[in-house]
């Protein structure tokens, strides 16, 4: 596509036609705040925090849904723009609980960050605030709709990524809320699969991982990139750890694998890591089969033992006496090696997989 040259804050910028003003600015290191925007979701244009001034255009258009045009002149921080953004933050804060002190999102909250950036205290308006009950009837997600700023990212993630459509906007105007049908909870809806992708995109503290509450402040967490072990997809994870304890798991945005999205297991199944039942060393059975008595062994001993036993069985009963059952939790490479080993070394086609049926 052809390129377009425009001016943003006095800087001449050339971007491909069809780019949004927001993207053009961000690609060039120019700051524009957003709440409802996510490059991976359909544009919404609702929060209006990203408004800018564009010469020749009426009012202050939202940069996230305005495409660049040749010769366009954009101001991202004019007094009028700043006034509007401050007002937008005042309006959002006027209907938002003041519990940043204990909010689990504190330190990673977009609303908090922008309020700080623009010096907005949220004390301009004193009026009605929502008073919705806290939703915590499921083991995974806590929903506090009083903190919701109605950016609709959770709705779009549920519809466009998970393709589950559990939640939508209901009611209207000031009373608009994000909810499953009939104002049920996620659990009551019986439709939610608790993938938790909604939690991940929530810019504020309206959605939180239940298990992470009170487990550590944002700035105390060490973030570790790793790969999910639950299946062969190998989703990239960002595990937040405090004092050797997994506080929460989020998807790491690797577009080659999972683009940051996870399923219920990867996101909420990390407790196995600290389970006392977890096997951390090789075990070799002592006593009779079924008796359940094992002794710890080293990896060398365990591997030698296995190799020896396989050889013995093959010699005594032939290759067809041996079969291998692989796992969906292994990677493609591991599964490949497994079948290669069975065919080339053991000499059998007895290869199967737990997820085959």
């Amino acid at each position, binding site marked *: 596509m052809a390129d377009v040259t425009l001016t943003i804050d006095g800087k001449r910028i050339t971007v491909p036609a069809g780019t949004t003003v927001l993207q053009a600015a961000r690609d060039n290191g120019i700051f524009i705040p957003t709440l409802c925007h996510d490059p991976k979701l359909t544009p919404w244009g609702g929060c209006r925090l990203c408004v800018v001034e564009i010469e020749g255009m009426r009012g202050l258009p939202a940069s996230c849904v305005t495409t660049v045009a040749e010769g366009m002149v954009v101001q991202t921080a004019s007094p009028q723009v700043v006034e509007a953004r401050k007002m937008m933050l005042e309006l959002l804060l006027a209907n938002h609980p003041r519990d940043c002190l204990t909010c689990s999102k504190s330190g990673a909250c977009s609303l908090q960050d922008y309020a700080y950036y623009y010096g907005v205290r949220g004390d301009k308006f004193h*009026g009605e605030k929502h008073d919705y009950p806290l939703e915590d009837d499921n083991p995974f997600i806590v929903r506090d709709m009083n903190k919701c700023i109605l950016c609709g990212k959770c709705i779009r993630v549920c519809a466009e990524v998970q393709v589950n459509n559990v939640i939508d906007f209901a009611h209207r105007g*000031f009373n608009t809320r994000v909810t499953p049908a009939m104002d049920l909870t996620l659990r009551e809806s019986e439709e939610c699969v608790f993938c938790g992708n909604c939690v991940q995109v929530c810019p504020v503290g309206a959605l939180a991982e239940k298990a992470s509450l009170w487990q550590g402040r944002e700035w105390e967490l060490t973030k570790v990139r790793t790969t999910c072990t639950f299946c062969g997809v190998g989703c990239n994870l960002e595990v937040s750890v405090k004092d050797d304890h997994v506080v929460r798991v989020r998807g790491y945005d690797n577009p080659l694998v999972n683009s940051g999205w996870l399923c219920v297991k990867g996101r909420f199944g990390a407790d196995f890591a600290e389970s006392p039942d977890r096997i951390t060393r090789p075990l070799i059975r002592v006593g009779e089969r079924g008796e359940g008595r094992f002794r710890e062994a080293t990896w060398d001993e365990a591997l030698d033992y296995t190799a020896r036993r396989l050889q013995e069985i093959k010699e005594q009963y032939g290759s067809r006496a041996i079969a291998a059952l692989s796992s969906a939790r292994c990677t493609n490479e591991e599964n490949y090696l497994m079948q290669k080993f069975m065919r080339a070394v053991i000499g059998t086609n007895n290869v199967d997989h737990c997820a085959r049926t």
Partner: protein
Amino acid sequence: MQDLKEWRETLQQQSHRGDRPSLTVGMSTCGQAAGGAKVMAALEEEIARRGLQVDISQTSCIGMCYAEPIVEVALPGKPRVFYGDVTPERVPTLVEKHVLQGEPVREWALIQLSGEATPYEGIPVMPGSTYYGRQVRVVTSRLGLTNPESLEEYIATGGYEALEKVLGQMTPEQVIEEIKISGLRGRGGAGFPTGLKWSFTRQAPGDKKYVVCNADEGDPGAFMDRSVLEGDPFSVIEGMTIAAYAIGADEGYIYCRAEYPLAIKRLKMAIAAAGEKGLLGRDILGTGFNFDLHIKAGAGAFVCGEETALLASIEGRQGMPRVRPPFPAQQGLWGKPTNINNVETYANVPFIIKNGGQWFASMGTEKSKGTKVFCLTGKIKKTGLIEVPMGITLREIIFDIAGGIQDDKQFKAVQIGGPSGGCLPEDKLDLPVDYESLTAAGAIMGSGGMVVMDENTCMVDVARFFLNFTQAESCGKCTPCREGTKRMLEILTRICEGEGRMEDLDTLETLARVVKNTALCGLGQTCPNPILSTLQYFRHEYEAHIKDKRCPAHVCQALLVYTIDAGKCTGCGACARACPAGAISGEKKQPHRIDPALCIKCGSCMEKCKFGAISRL
């Protein structure tokens, strides 16, 4: 097509009102609300009782809402006489005198339409009367004069001549050119040039295109579109059919608000009738042109008057607007190029095609051509529906046509353009009514609602009223409208309740400006107008509420103080008995007192006092 011509000629000969007297009752929504059905029943009964050979039929709104129910009496070869404020009790006299004796009842007659007949003496003749003299009726020309449910009457009065011309002699480009020459601009509010809009949709790539009629007239104080739909549904259908031909569409929707059941009923009848005669559907007038028209009833959301919200609603979703561009002309209904105009815009089209774009352009001002229908309501003498050439002044409308303010009170403001409009004060009365002048003054043309306010109207209360409306109608999608209307309403309510602070005015003004600049759709962008215009022209009223804790118009209840003038009070005790709060005390035959702590300011005492001893400050 030849058949249509012949049919029209036959109809025209028949429709020279025959040899029987005819009685016609205005049965539009307001006519019915005023008791039209009862009058109709009384007429039928009276005619049956006397065994007369008289035709009784119904028509739509002639525009004189102030005089409903209206009955037209026409004798063969005589002028058509319109009677206002007809009651069942007046029916026998009317029949006796006018129908039987041939003498109109002059004191009840509003107006007469003489045509070729000699007018009766002593009854104003329709063109030339004070109410109609300054009006130019184009889209309302059939209203109240024909039976809106009769395709025959529509055709006999020149209906479908335009479609005939378009399909027989004009290319789509020529149609668009004619509309461009006329200078017609969208009558829904924003005033975008119609011809240009049509050409965008025509030029948009795509095989499938739609025409949509926005009949979601939701502004409080506006009923132009309802009146046209109820009174001349075929003109809207003909206009849409012409638009479809011009832009290359074969399917259309009329999105009509569900609160207009009669309009929907008449549209359905009209669509069926036109379809039966080959004027809609497949192979219209044998020319191979196809156009299917559907009706969608709204479900109660003002924001659906915004075109992208309207389209979302037709598609079966919440009426949440989306950002434009892309405009509906490029991506509209189900992503296809779509032309959206409102009722009055389409209704103008057959007249423009028939009489030529030049004819239309000869009316109005340089940038605002043609006529505009307005609804006059509020504190004026003659509420109703009028059609005037663009460029007429507000003063002419309010004082010359509508007869001025009720009870001859002092004019204070006129609210134009509904919740998106503004309130203009006395010194703007000589403003010409055109798109640019009204916008410059802080109001907008809007769809045409005009609510007149007198000295007893509180402008802060009016602003609060409109914000209450827009706040309830905000869709909730964008922050400034969802949260901003709520806070503006809270501030206004506080001021009306005497809790306002001077700094509230600054906050209100800044917030109003930001909402105007940042809201996603037209509803949000214009909803601060009632605040901004009242702050501009009636700031002193805001200040009186805040500084003096006083409502100058005596409207804001919390700020009222009732007192008894001891000199005038006779101690009759009527006020004390009327007081629901027990706030009035006093000995018999001694002056009474009102305890301000107990008073709920309902005003009952004042209504009961025969001596004018109670005053309200």
